[in-house]
């Protein structure tokens, strides 16, 4: 294998040798994204449910979660190194990813709940469904398609940002990329970066397929 070979031949050779490492990083990547999305969903839906009916808190929550998304990720990770209890490693990455993942979920929860036909909610109230039952049996199921879209968007954003987590020793495919960038002179530098990047693209596609399946299964037939 000579040095004149094109990048994809190099990549192929690289993957043949190191596929187990790439796979391990990909699994770490998936794990950290899934944990972050799960936390962001719990917090985001809770915030949405708590604020969708009152304007001031609603605006506040949207403004704050919106601001999170504007902080450059590299800077945020840098700040977290100095925060006691976070520091280097996966925990900081998860906290940062949750912050980035909130906006789409909170926003879609609020929009979804506010779009539920008021006549449907009123008839539920008129039949004697209490506040909690209305929310769980009527409003959330009807808002679910919109909320699920929010979770999907959030996941796609986090798959990308999670790669930067490797900057503070976070797990995932970012490790490949940063390893490549740190040793630009090495033979495998380009292959490292490409393997990491392609891995992320493949993950994004797989996640998207997963969400197509989830929406098929969880969205009731009556509102599909």
């Amino acid at each position, binding site marked *: 294998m000579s040095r004149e070979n094109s990048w994809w031949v190099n990549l192929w050779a690289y993957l043949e040798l190191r596929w187990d490492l790439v796979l391990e990083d990909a699994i770490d990547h998936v794990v950290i994204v899934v944990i972050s999305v799960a936390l962001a969903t719990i917090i985001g839906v809770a915030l949405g449910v708590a604020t969708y009916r009152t304007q001031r808190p609603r605006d506040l929550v949207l403004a704050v979660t919106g601001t999170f998304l504007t902080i450059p990720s590299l800077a945020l990770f840098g700040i977290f190194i100095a925060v006691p209890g976070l520091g280097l490693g996966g925990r900081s990455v998860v906290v940062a990813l949750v912050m980035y993942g909130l906006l789409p979920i909170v926003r879609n929860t609020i929009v979804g709940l506010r779009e539920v*036909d008021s006549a449907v909610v009123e008839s539920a109230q008129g039949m*004697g469904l209490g506040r909690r039952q209305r929310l769980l049996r009527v409003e959330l199921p009807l808002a679910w398609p919109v909320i699920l879209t929010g979770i999907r968007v959030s996941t796609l954003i986090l798959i990308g940002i999670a790669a930067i987590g490797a900057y503070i020793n976070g797990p995932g495919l970012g490790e490949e990329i940063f390893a490549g960038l740190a040793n630009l002179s090495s033979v495998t530098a380009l292959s490292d970066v490409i393997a990491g990047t392609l891995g992320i693209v493949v993950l994004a596609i797989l996640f998207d397929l997963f969400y197509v399946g989830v929406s098929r299964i969880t969205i009731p037939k009556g509102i599909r």
Partner: protein
Amino acid sequence: MMSNGQQSGARTNGSESKIRLENLSKTFPGQHEPAVDDLSMEIPEGEIVIFVGPSGCGKTTTMKLINRIIEPTGGRIFLDGEDVTKVNPDHLRRRIGYVIQQIGLFPHVTIADNIATVPRLLSWDKKRINDRVDELLTTVGMDPGQYRNRYPKELSGGQRQRVGVARAMSADPDVMLMDEPFGAIDPITRDRLQNEFLRLQEQIKKTIVFVTHDIDEAIKMGDRIAILGDQSRIAQFDTPERILVDPANDYVADFIGRGASLKRLSLSRVRDLELHQWPTTAESASHDDVNRLLDASDQSAVLVLDDQQRPVQWVNAEHLRRATPDRPLREIGLPADAVVQPNATLSDTLNEMLTARYSCAIVVDSDRAYQGIVDIDTINEAVRGMRLAEQGRLREEISSS
């Protein structure tokens, strides 16, 4: 507070009012004028009471005060003599059926699940719920096998309305609140649903509060009508007959509008009239028989009935002369149109009659068998009778008071 409650409890003893509203008021936050101002009213058991008035008069707000979808800011609500102004609103609402104009079926669950909502809240067992769903679908004229597992979006507007009514009746509440329930439906379907609902009410005898802005609907549906003015002030609360014959003031007269006499025709039904008879013959009769019948009668045609007594044709002497003697009666003459059933209103009957050939409407029973005929004179007498009866009743009241 305690003694107050006992007092009012005592007052309702012996009275038949199902719902009593006492000095009920509602002022929305940030508004100076109350939307409902000091309303007191008794709603008798088993009757349809209509709240009617121009838009913005507070009639819907008043109705929603009863199940406390809107909480009153003053006054009290009694249901079966019990003060329900402060009880748990969700428990109160499970005792009261609620139908709104937009219906508000849950789009994400099936028709059966929609109807089963309240029974499930009340933790009925599965079999009882299933039986109840099937029973109610049948009651509102929908085949359970066909519709149970459909979703609301797969139904027409009229069918959704039926499901809405079925859902409101699911736990068999004594009281139903209906806010313009037929408002968003095309006129033909609306008319049919109104008639079906009245027929249903004859069996179920619920206490119904029904809100509409349409005085014609009020007259047709109501046992009693409350004509409401601004801030839900009662301009007149009375039977439809009395409101049409003796409007309490100019506001009510204006609201009824012109044509009060015509509207009165919606108050009576064919079954209240004495039917006239018309010469009839079996379709197997010979032409000679029919000719003899015509000679003996002062009418110019006979009505031909089939073997199940159902009207088929009008046949007169001219028809017979032009036809060969062996031609079946079914094939000559003119089709028997303008057929009405005993529950048709006089207004519908008059309408049929105006387009009929012999200026009369044929009355048939539910098996479409011939009962008799109604002509213009019968209707005229009925209207005159109604007016006299009301005036007589009024005079009696004035002299007795």
